[in-house]
């Protein structure tokens, strides 16, 4: 397959970027999107040009690094997969593919397709954990957890922190990410005890970092590679409001 690629190029955070068009030829339909990018970069290096910088790590859909906005979709047109798990057969032969970095004020572009997503890490550090004693490992089965709760917690825990939610949101809201983290812990007895503090401090950090206010459009859940439901946002709202009313 052959493709025309329209890619955002930007030297560093301070420079003005622009789109550049490249061609890739003889790509097998079973090439993954990132492998296609590798082929492009290989060609660019051989031609003595700067390769395109893009984030990636695991290439198996679990690290959440491979942030790219492809033809108008965060993580491309495939449903419920990350960019690294998408294959070129998803695209029409000979078509032009537009590749942009995440666009959100809290995720500034560092270079080409790479953005600084440390804002999500800061939100996590503000409360996305449970406080446990180290030393002896507790018996895993000592605390019974209803299957439905465990399932819901696991669904929320599938979030890979990729940033597609805020990048997709017209309000630049990080609510889906924050909700997934709050929800996955709120559904478990170990997480519940610190629930009120967690909801308050994570929302406060999210607001402080300049993320927007959710207006429940649902665009985030449509583009989330892990199909996190906005039902978790409703739970975050409950947790947060209940905590504030108890203050």
């Amino acid at each position, binding site marked *: 397959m052959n493709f025309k690629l329209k890619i955002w190029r930007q030297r560093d955070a301070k420079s003005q970027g622009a789109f550049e068009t490249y061609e890739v030829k003889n790509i097998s339909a079973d090439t993954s999107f990132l492998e296609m990018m590798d082929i492009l970069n290989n060609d660019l290096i051989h031609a003595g040009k700067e390769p395109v910088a893009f984030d990636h790590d695991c290439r198996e859909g679990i690290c959440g690094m491979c942030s790219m906005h492809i033809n108008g979709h965060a993580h491309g047109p495939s449903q419920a997969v990350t960019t690294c798990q998408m294959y070129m057969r998803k695209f029409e032969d000979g078509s032009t593919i537009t590749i942009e970095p995440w*666009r959100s004020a809290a995720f500034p572009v560092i270079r080409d397709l790479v953005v600084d997503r440390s804002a999500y890490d800061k939100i996590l550090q503000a409360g996305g954990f449970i406080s446990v004693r180290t030393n002896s490992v507790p018996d895993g089965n000592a605390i019974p957890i209803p299957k439905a709760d465990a399932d819901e917690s696991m669904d929320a825990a599938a979030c890979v922190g990729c940033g597609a939610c805020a990048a997709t949101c017209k309000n630049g809201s990080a609510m889906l990410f924050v909700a997934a983290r709050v929800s996955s812990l709120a559904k478990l007895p170990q997480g519940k005890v610190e629930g009120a503090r967690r909801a308050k401090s994570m*929302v406060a950090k999210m607001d402080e970092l300049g993320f927007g*206010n959710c207006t429940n459009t649902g665009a985030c859940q449509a583009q989330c590679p892990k199909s996190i439901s906005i039902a978790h946002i409703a739970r975050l709202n409950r947790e947060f409001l209940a905590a504030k009313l108890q203050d």
Partner: protein
Amino acid sequence: MSCFLTNSSVGKKLVMSITGCFLVLFILFHMSMNLAMLFSPAAYDAICEFLGANWYALAATVVLAAGVAVHFIYAFILTVDNYRARGKQRYQVTVQEKGVSWASKNMLVLGVIVILGLGLHLIHFWSKMQLVEIMGHHASVVGGYEVGATQGAALMMITFSKWYNVVLYIVWFAAIWFHLTHGVWSMFQTAGFANDTWYPRLKCLANIVATLIFLGFAVVAVYCFLTSTPQLIESLLIA
């Protein structure tokens, strides 16, 4: 306690949700009141007289105006915040995401149409009814007729005898319809009362409420347009 409603995103959204809910309840009440017009203009006038400019009605008007003002001001604060948060650099290619309604992305625009319609409505009706009484008068001249402050039925017949008023009001009702197809389920989500089982139900409820409000108001305006005659207006004014 008071602070999270002004300094946190979720708190500010709760204010939108509560004021929005209040406005929905008011508008449902207003619509039911108007429906009396279909059955008996005399009954409608009786309601106007009852709700005229007594202290309870005045207090309720102040609360209502405050509700609109808070909803409106917060809408702007939140939207400006959101513009800043999404950043100046936008995508060159965008798509309409699956399951995302047009209304949900255009709530401010719809709201601005709603408030413009509200301004027109206040000039047409409120200024001729409650305001004249507050000013100590009891009647005003509308379209060549002298209309008493409680003669709501005649005022409606005069206003909606003009086709352009009917069109303007229907555009206004349509904006409210769009605003509420999203707003009514969104207010539950914001307050935390929603989950995957309830989304289809809440969205269905939102469509029903929005459509009921649209039809309830539109049917009265159209009915007035179709039945209004100078003789009828004269007879309502004498009554």
